[in-house]
Every structure is written in C-alpha cells, then in structure tokens.
C-alpha cells in the first residue's frame, strides 16, 4: 500500500498485532475473584511509564477513584489517551502524571471552560503531543480490539490535525479513494467505571457507552470500578446486558459514587459547584497546591474525598438533580 502523505508526530504505542496477541495469549482467562481496593489496583496494574486510557466521557461515568489514586501514588511519565478527556485530564495534569499525550480533546471542560492548570502544563513544553480527532482515536481503539494493526477513516484529511498526527494517507486498492490510516492503539492499562459488576469483572454499563466497549477490548490491563458489586447470578440472569466480559478484566474495585464529581447516568448528576471550585483554585498555583493536598494527597482513599465534598448529603442532592426533581 503506497503512502501518499504522513503526519509528523510520533506514535506512542506499538501497533504490532502479533506482539499484542502474544500479550493476550499470556493474560489469564481464569474466572476468579478480582476484587481489591483502588490502592491495590493501581499498585499492581499502573506502572511509571505506562500508556494509560480512562473510560467515560470526561466528567461523565469516569473511574475517578483510580484517577485520584494514580495522582496520590505519584505515578510519572505516563502516556495518555486524550480521548474526550476533561476532568480526568485535569486531575492527571494536576499530578503531572503524564509526559506524552495523544490529543483529541484535552485541557477543556466543555461549556465549563478551560482548566488553567492543565493549560499551563500543556503550554510548558514538558509534554509531548500528537494530534488526532475523537473518531481517529476511536478507530485506533477499534483496530486494536479487532486485532489488526491499523484502521482507516475519511476525516482529519487535509488539515493540520492530520499534519500533527501520526497518521498516513493511503489509497483504496478498490476505488482509488484516499483514506487516513491510523495505527492500532493497545493501551498498557485502562480504567472504566460501570454501574454493576460481579467479582470476576463481568460488567454492565447503562446509558451511552462512549468508546468504552472498544477500549475494554483494546487495553492490555483493565481496572473496573463499579457503583455496585452484584452476584454472578445477576449477570447470568440477563447476559444481554453485559458490556464487558470477565476475561478482559484484571481488577474489580467497588466504589459507590465513583464518578463523582462527574455525572453517573440514572444515579447522580455532576457536582458543578465542586468542578467550579477546581477551576477557581487552579488560577493560583499556590492555592491549587493546597487544594490538591486537601482533596487528594491527604486522603487515604476516594471515600475520604467524598466525605470532604459533603458526603452522602451532597450525593443525595445530586441524585435529585439527576432524576430531575427540582431542589
């Protein structure tokens, strides 16, 4: 296949499908109890230098206990899949945990504005960046999930987004049409927050799946955090609802309200006041250092963070908001 043009920036993950197969050949498929704490999951499965991906959509259904724990354990030199990332990116940038990013959506929090601290970090020159679009990163995950080394798409062509990517322009052998070929992305480790999971990792996502079905199948190691732990019989009662089967999963961490301050569909809405407090604290680096100490470093786990943010009382308000009960 002839390469007609190519992006200038590096690819941070190895697109070789046989190396990925070799990894998955050796990954355990035993249906065993995988329950552990967020501390154990991060100690065991997230290593300095790993390439990390976070599920959900920025401040919706995010595995925030794992994101906080990665910062608390001061993981460094991670690669990061910046796919629809908002609050998750903001927290990891606060810990300066990554030094290279595949960027489709970073530093912003949608209508809430841009994270001042994440911007400072990205404007410092300390982070290596390769540019993509959301769909381009989704195609990279789908290729990995399919066990092939690249995928194709018709967007990003002709733009600086292509020029600053690691994609290549190729010609269709059947029609002569041009496509952007993008390399498969097998993240070393991913974390996804779900509504229900059993102790083996069979997991149920309710509502939109974003890119988590392909991410779960592309990630070499997968940490599931779940609102609720359910019995395996409940999974077997309705197998149509299973989004992620156990053999993809390495760790199961039960974290009620684990997407906080993000939204968890059907359960609780995002805490806009607390998200605004992050943005406000970030304006002054000294104030922000104190803020991080209070809300992450001095907490021994995510439950302590929840308590500091108002605990169950605040959660109940967010539950009403989610259910459109006017408070």
């Amino acid at each position: 296949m002839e390469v007609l043009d190519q992006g200038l920036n590096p690819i941070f993950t190895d697109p070789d499908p046989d190396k990925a197969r070799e990894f998955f050949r050796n990954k355990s498929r035993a249906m065993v109890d995988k329950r552990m704490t967020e501390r154990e999951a991060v100690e065991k499965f997230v290593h300095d230098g790993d390439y990390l991906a976070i599920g959900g959509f920025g401040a919706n259904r995010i595995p925030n206990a794992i994101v906080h724990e990665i910062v608390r354990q001061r993981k460094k030199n991670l690669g990061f899949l910046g796919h629809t990332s908002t609050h998750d990116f903001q927290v990891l940038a606060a810990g300066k945990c990554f030094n290279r990013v595949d960027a489709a959506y970073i530093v912003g929090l949608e209508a809430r504005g841009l994270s001042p601290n994440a911007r400072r970090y990205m404007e410092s020159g300390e982070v290596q960046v390769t540019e993509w679009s959301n769909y381009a990163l989704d195609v990279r995950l789908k290729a990995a999930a399919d066990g092939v080394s690249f995928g194709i798409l018709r967007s990003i062509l002709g733009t600086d987004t292509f020029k600053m990517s690691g994609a290549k322009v190729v010609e269709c052998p059947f029609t002569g049409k041009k496509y952007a070929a993008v390399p498969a992305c097998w993240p070393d480790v991913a974390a996804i927050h779900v509504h229900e999971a059993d102790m083996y990792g069979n997991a149920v996502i309710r509502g939109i799946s974003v890119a988590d079905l392909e991410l779960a199948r592309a990630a070499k190691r997968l940490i599931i955090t779940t609102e609720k732990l359910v019995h395996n019989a409940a999974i077997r009662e309705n197998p149509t609802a299973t989004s992620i089967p156990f053999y993809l999963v390495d760790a199961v961490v039960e974290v009620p309200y684990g997407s906080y301050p993000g939204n968890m569909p059907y359960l609780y809405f995002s805490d806009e006041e607390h998200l605004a407090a992050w943005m406000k604290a970030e304006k002054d680096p000294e104030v922000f250092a104190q803020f991080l100490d209070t809300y992450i470093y001095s907490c021994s786990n995510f439950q302590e963070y929840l308590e500091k943010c108002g605990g169950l009382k605040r959660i109940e308000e967010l539950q009403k908001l989610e259910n459109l009960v006017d408070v």
Partner: protein
Amino acid sequence: MAPEYNTMEMMICVASRYLEDGKTVAVGTGAPCAAAMLAQKLYSPNLIILFEAGGVAPLLPRMPISVGDSRTFYKAVMAAGMSEMMTTCARGQVDYAFLGGAQIDKYGNINSTLIGDYQKPKVRFPGSGGANDFASFCWRTMIMTVHTKARFVEKCDFITSPGFLHGEGSREAAGLPEGGPYKIITDLAVMGFDAQTKAMMVESLNPGVELQQVIENTGFELLVSADIGRTEAPTEEELRLLREEVDPLRLVIGRA
C-alpha cells in the same frame, strides 16, 4: 414595537431557521443545542438531535452541560456510543453539525487547537474533539460566533477542522467527502460561501448593522452577495419559546 433581544438570542433564533424538518443535526452544548431545541419547538418538530458521545433523538428535558451527560440520552431512542455516531456521519446520514473555534478563515476552516508553536504553544485549546470528524462528514456545517477581527482571520494558526481548505476543489483533492461550511451566523451578519470559489460571502446584515461594520470586523476580504438582504430579527414567538421553554435558566442566553 419590536421586541428587545441580545446577540446570543439573535444568533440562536437565526440558526434555528436553517434546520429543516426531518433532518439530523449533531450538536454540542450551549447555543447549538438551544438552536436545535428551538427549531424542534417551532419549525421542525421531526428534527433529530444527535450527540457525539452516543445520545440518539433524546427528548431533552433541559440543557445538557456536557455532550455526554445523562440529559443527552434522556428518553432517547438509543443510548449508543461514539462509534455509532461517527459512522452515521461517515455514511452520510447526518445533515447538519455546529462547530466553534478561536479562529475561522475565509474558506471556513477552523482553529480550536492552539496559537503559536505546536510542541510549546502560546495558548493550548482542547483540539478537535469530534469537530474535525463532523466538519469532514456532515453535509452542512454551521458556526455561531461573535464577529471580531481576531476571530475572522486571513490564515488560521492551525487548521483543526476543515472548511473548504484552500478553496475550489481542495476538499476533493485532499480526499474529503462532499460537504463543508453552510452558514456562519454572527452578531453582525449571516454569511454563506460562493458556489464557485468557496470563499466566504455576506448574505444578510443583522438589524441595525451596516456592511462597513462587518468589513471592519473581518480580517480578510469578504465577498458580498449581489442580493444582500437583512436578517430577520428574532420574532416574538421565537423569543418566548427560547426564554420560557428552551433556556429558562438563561444558561446560554444569559451569556451575551
């Protein structure tokens, strides 16, 4: 006496008129979502709203904060994922998309990535998100923005999402499917694009605005339509629905 309105209300009302019944529109949060909701209530009851994170045809109870929050698939016909939405765009089943950015050039190319050097930017913005994909795939893309010289530039620092690239024939040459920018709706005017050269062209001036004002606030040479008209001011009914039903908390229209 004509009703009073702010510039945000003006842009949302104008945008809502371009969304035809029975078509599909990919929206973000804020003004685009308000325009689509207003269109559904007034002009196009069968307009189908799509959100890139996976929400298909929700019955929006109120404004979402995020394109992936639970409002975006409230009583939806399907709660899908990003792949479903993007492949629907790629197949040619999405008619409209709204885009935004820090800069736009005369061919409707948009910058939402950065100002300055790539690896050490002066200002870093979010990047494409799904915008490049929408701009590549959707039949007609639209932008609502304030009209300033800093925004309407001769050359974008970075082309995040494609308009007509370098003009006539260049989308095709790059391998992009047919489609591209349709209307640019600002606080001063509504602009379209010349059918031949694909350069931006003023089509109508907003109430009380003179052509000279538009020219002075644009950083490149604008074409002017031979039959340039006046943008119709927001009607009382548009404003009532927008204020009472679409955005009663003034989350979007309060920003003007």
